[in-house]
């Protein structure tokens, strides 16, 4: 195990006056199953402290104990030199500890300012003092540096801006610790960037942020201190400066992830072209051309908003295409219907499985068979027997783990949910698969399973396009990488040319690398 000096030393408190939260010997069991065992961690005032770990490692449980949502079975919490006994989030709030919930508590019809002061209105004698409220709001905005208009209805804001409102509400009540559990999980990529800026500004202002996150790159970019948990035990707390992604993964898994990606098996160079995109123009896609061969994995990289998902949607014929054409197996793919694209052998796994992929409340079985019910039905009548048999095979093939196929999709872990979409895609027996962010919100163990799947599907002759914001994913999987910027393809990297610097150079390039 790599040894890293724990950041136990003093130094920070001088820059950021205020008390630290010290957690010692905390344990928690749920129905006999230990969720946390003897965990000790110190959250310093004004730092960004990340909690990481695989699903079920106990990071959310620890976050909930600090925010008063659940009480520990054993162990103590102290704030400065006072012991903390938190029985509810409300009590935690009284101590300046605020949680930013994943489901945002915003009243859409009220203005931004009204939402910030919701429940603690600036009032005298029951009358809201609007001018005074606005004055305070402006002060607060200045302090945190958000560009929010006080009078806009909160419902019209983007998710990231709604989070800002929640954060301002927390700050208006003098929060000195803000706990965020997977704050970027529900955000689009550019909203995530905005959130990161918020977290940085909070820390600059002396508010400590406890960041619970799946995204290691996010953690490394934001955190001052990183605490890794595994199976409810503390692995280690390290200074983020010396930490690397490999080291964190090793800590989370208890083994090194040297084999993070399956071996690349190149498709023969003379393999048939399965997809040909020529001069494709669509909203935020500005004249893209490329081709894809049988058995090839093509990575599409680029910065946030570069038009990668839009390109995928345009190829899938789900966006208005203004010019250019898409040829699938030599024949033009027309129309504007995902249905037709699927029937022709082109399948898309969309970027957000919750919003665009799955019927969360319906069974695993129904979710898998949705695209190809015709295979298990006759004259519109679904044969449950045939459906069960086929879905069972597909689940095995895609390593979906679920207690039963009649379980609703929302009962599955993120990784298994994502695999459901793969099972659905395999059922369509496509010649081309586009996977948009195939491992978003998926734990490290399932990621590898998905990589294996993609590689195997390619080996069987499918042409695969992988779009990902995680550079190493694109680099680790793809035989060839296209780098996009402003809706155009800036570079095509093959073989040994595929490395981080080359991708980044093209992604940031101002002019075409041609």
């Amino acid at each position: 195990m790599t040894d890293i000096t724990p950041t136990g030393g003093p130094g920070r408190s001088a820059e950021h006056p205020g008390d630290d939260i010290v957690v010692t010997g905390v344990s928690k069991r749920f129905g006999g199953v230990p969720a946390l065992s003897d965990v000790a961690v110190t959250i310093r005032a004004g730092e960004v402290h990340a909690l990481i770990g695989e699903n079920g490692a106990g990071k959310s449980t620890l976050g909930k104990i600090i925010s008063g949502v659940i009480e520990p079975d054993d162990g103590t919490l102290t704030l400065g030199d006072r012991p903390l006994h938190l029985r509810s989030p409300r009590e935690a709030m009284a101590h300046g500890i605020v949680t930013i919930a994943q489901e945002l508590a915003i009243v859409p019809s009220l203005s931004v300012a009204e939402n910030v002061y919701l429940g603690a209105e600036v009032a005298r004698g029951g009358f809201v003092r609007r001018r005074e409220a606005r004055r305070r709001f402006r002060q607060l905005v200045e302090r945190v540096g958000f560009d929010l208009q006080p009078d806009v209805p909160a419902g019209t804001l983007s998710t990231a801006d709604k989070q800002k409102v929640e954060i301002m509400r927390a700050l208006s009540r003098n929060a000195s610790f803000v706990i965020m559990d997977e704050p970027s999980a529900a955000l689009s990529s550019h909203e995530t960037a905005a959130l990161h800026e918020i977290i940085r500004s909070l820390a600059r202002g002396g508010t400590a942020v406890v960041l619970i996150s799946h995204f290691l790159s996010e953690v490394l970019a934001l955190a001052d201190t990183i605490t890794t948990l595994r199976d409810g035990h503390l692995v280690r707390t390290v200074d983020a400066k010396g930490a690397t992604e490999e080291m964190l993964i090793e800590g989370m898994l208890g083994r090194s992830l040297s084999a993070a990606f399956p071996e690349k098996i190149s498709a023969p160079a003379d393999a048939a072209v399965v997809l040909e995109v020529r001069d494709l123009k669509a909203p935020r896609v500005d004249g893209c051309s490329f081709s894809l061969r049988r058995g090839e994995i093509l990575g599409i990289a680029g910065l946030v908003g570069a038009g990668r998902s839009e390109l995928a949607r345009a190829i899938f014929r789900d966006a208005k295409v203004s010019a250019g054409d898409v040829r699938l197996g030599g024949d033009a793919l027309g129309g504007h219907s995902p249905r037709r694209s699927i029937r022709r052998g082109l399948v898309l796994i969309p970027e957000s499985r919750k919003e665009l992929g799955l019927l969360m409340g319906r069974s695993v079985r129904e979710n898998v068979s949705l695209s190809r019910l015709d295979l298990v039905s006759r004259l519109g009548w679904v044969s449950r027997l045939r459906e069960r048999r086929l879905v069972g095979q597909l689940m095995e093939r895609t390593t979906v783990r679920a207690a039963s196929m009649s379980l609703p999709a929302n009962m599955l872990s993120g990784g298994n949910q994502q695999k459901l979409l793969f099972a659905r895609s395999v059922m369509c027996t496509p010649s081309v698969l586009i996977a948009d962010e195939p491992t978003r919100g998926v734990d490290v163990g399932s990621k590898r399973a998905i990589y294996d799947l993609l590689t195997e599907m390619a080996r069987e002759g499918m042409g695969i396009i992988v779009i990902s914001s995680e550079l190493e994913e694109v680099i680790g999987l793809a035989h060839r990488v296209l780098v996009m910027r402003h809706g155009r393809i800036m570079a095509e990297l093959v073989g040994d040319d595929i490395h981080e610097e080359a991708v980044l150079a093209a992604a940031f390039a101002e002019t075409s690398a041609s």
Partner: protein
Amino acid sequence: MSNATEQNTIESHELESREGLRSGSARLMRSWRMAGIFIPFLMLFIILSVTSSAFLHTTNLINILDQQASTLCIAAAGTLVLVAGGIDLSVGSTYAFAGVTAGEIGQHHSIFLAIGAAIAVGLLVGLINGVIVTVFKISPLITTLAMSYVIQGAALKVTSGNLILTGTIPGFTTFATAQFLGVPSAVWMTIVFVVIVSLLLSRTTFGRYVVAAGGNAEAARLAGVRVGGIKITTFVLSGVAAALGGVIDAARLGSILASSGGAALSFTVLAGIVVGGTSIAGGEGSGWRTAIGVLFIALIGNGFDLLGVDPNWQQIVLGLILLVAVGLDMWARRTRR
């Protein structure tokens, strides 16, 4: 290394057992949803059988079914609309319009033409509703509310507000009252219709698409479901059912008014669907549970009549039951998160 793999398997076992635990409560929840209205219905049935001597008689029971025939048909089709994420408030007016259409045409032409024209009217109304909702993207609530005024107006125009006597049309009454095994044809038609719609929803590809369209329209579309077409079809079925209901009642009762049915019928239908446990948010529901929901409401009315309770209480009780039904649905949704 071996230690690590061991740990991983332990973790996966834990994960599975935890998922198993959750699936247990989920299954309980699901079976509750399945049973849902059935248990209170059975309880009410038993209570009425014990407390009222007149209740448990074939005549009374067949009477209830006969009276509820039109509501049952409309509610069964309305379930599809709700599950697909829509709502149809125009059924009450469509019912009346179809009824008077059948009456007006039946007076001069064959009853087959009359019934056919009435059904065609329902189909057309449903098609218009569906197209406005899916193509022009106007909320189904507003669309069908507006349509309900338009259709009722049209029905008033056609009849000049007069009572249309359908009992005098030769053979027309038989359409709903012909007896088979001591049960009127209206009830038989209703049974067939409800069974077909229930099976359509639970066992066919169309039903799956309806559920998908209402559960997550965008995901359904990307998975290759023709969401627009599916939604339009549910509105068409709803319109046809409303027309069928109108014709059945016109034949059964011997007369119909342009103001028959209307908003009161639309709301009764909606109440039946919701009491039956179909989610107003779409993506979930069943035809036979709707039937039980409608009959549950009917039993309350029938029971109150038989026991001689002030009829005003019926409305109060019905309102409270609706609130409980929706409340339970909300609660179920929240606990499933």
